[in-house]
């Protein structure tokens, strides 16, 4: 667990170095990280919605191919 924590810390240090937040003053870091977290959160939310929608579509298609015709407008089987 300790090894994992120090690895994560090292990874965070690399992120800091690459995006130059290592050089920023504390208030700049707060601004930068909150912006990054907000964008990341939005991306995750969009991905969740998108993926869930497409997965449910894909499963319905699969069910109908397996011989359980479903009475809904999205059924492709004739």
């Amino acid at each position, binding site marked *: 667990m300790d090894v994992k924590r120090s690895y994560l810390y090292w990874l965070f*240090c*690399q992120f*800091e170095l*690459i*995006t*130059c*937040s290592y*050089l*920023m003053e504390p208030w700049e870091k707060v601004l930068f990280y909150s912006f990054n977290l907000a964008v990341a959160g939005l991306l995750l939310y969009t991905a969740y919605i998108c993926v869930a929608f497409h997965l449910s579509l894909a499963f319905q298609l699969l069910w109908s191919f397996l011989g359980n015709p479903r009475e809904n407008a999205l059924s492709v089987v004739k």
Partner: protein
Amino acid sequence: INHIVHNGGLYKRPFNEAFEETPMLVAVLTYVGYGVLTLFGYLRDFMRQWKIEKCQNATEREEQKDFVPLYQDFENFYNRNLYMRIRDSWNRPICSVPGAKVDMMERVSHDYNWTFTYTGRVIKDIINMGSYNYLGFAQKAGACQEAAAKVLSQYGAGVCSTRQEMGNLDKHEELEKLVARFLGVESAMAYGMGFATNSMNIPALVGKGCLILSDELNHASLVLGARLSGATIRIFKHNNMQSLEKLLKDAIVHGQPRTRRPWKKILILVEGIYSMEGSIVRLPEVIALKKKYKSYLYLDEAHSIGALGPSGRGVVEYFGLSPEDVDVMMGTFTKSFGAAGGYIGGKKELIDYLRTYSHSAAYATSMSPPVVEQIITSVKCIMGEDGTTVGEARVQQLAENTRYFRRRLKEMGFIIYGNEDSPVVPLMLYMPAKIGAFGREMLKRNIGVVVVGFPATPIIESRARFCLSAAHTKEMLDTALKEINEVGDLLQLKYSRRRLVPLLDRPFDETTYEETED
């Protein structure tokens, strides 16, 4: 595999030079870093302008706000937003002789590098990997120091005149004869400052109606001298002989731009070792081209005199060539001789002309006597004329240190630029945060390094530059290498993919622009 050039017998030894290409991911991430810093720079400038934040850099006065703005160009933006953040890696005050180990005054900044205060503590015995101390003559005890102290008590420190008036001491004459004998030329002249040697003597040698062909990465002193002279300047690609030959052919065929008259003089400006790249000039090819197209060669051996060659006589001896082929041999005493100043060596007529017509001889104060004595003693030591083999041992120690250090760094996986034999070792960092981080981490581990960024290098190719010394023992180098390894793992600096790019060895035509094309 290094591409080893054997150009039909021009080179008597293999010429291993490599500049590994920047990995694409690293380049992209470097731009990302610079992008973030630029955005924050704009934010801070906005806050400074609207008085949300206190403005600590120089700005125009209130009455001058409507004038043409002074601080809006890129250099000033870079200065106040990017350079200020990592400024603590430069201008560090040292308080002992810059030998193999050095003492440094500790300083802290409470307002993010705008002002510094000294804590009063002195950090002792920092391994010095940044001083140009190639042969280890920066000492405070030893034969050189004793001789300099004796001359100081005899002549004093100041000369109070120029060379042409009352400042021509017998020590200067002795030095010049010694330097001429050391280099193997007819005559030499010494000046008080290395930068001034270049910038004040090139205007005396060429003028309007002459052509200067200068390497892309020449030092600021050569560029300044070339611009001051008023001659036409054309640049050829760094160490690229095909580019130089093309320029020479064009110059001979087409002549001067409007009148098509032949050029009065064509002068090729090259350096022995380029200090930012660690590359060595391809001197045999340059001399062959110079003879073929009947032009003159000005060789600036600032970093290579004393550091290359089996007996330390510079890049001409390293390639086994004759010093009579180089028309103007210039060098400095700052790097390998532990003193200050520069010299120019060549034929007797040339040096007599420079004694009369050089700006530096007419207006600049001549060299201080203790400095002259330091140079005399160190040159005699290198030549072996003081009766010991100390000089020869130092030259060999430097060569061994160079090979060992470079080999170990390459094995660790860093990207190292330059020639295998040059004592200047640039280690690529690329990202701006790593420049500051590398300097600070190495200082924490008691090693002093010089990191370089824009504008001395291209903006994404920032580097740490190590200068090896004959005064470094193997234990010191091993300690330094261990710490560099640690810091390299901590900061992820081991970018090398072990795929060294072979050098271009086929004719240069209009369709090849990169050395990396197949």
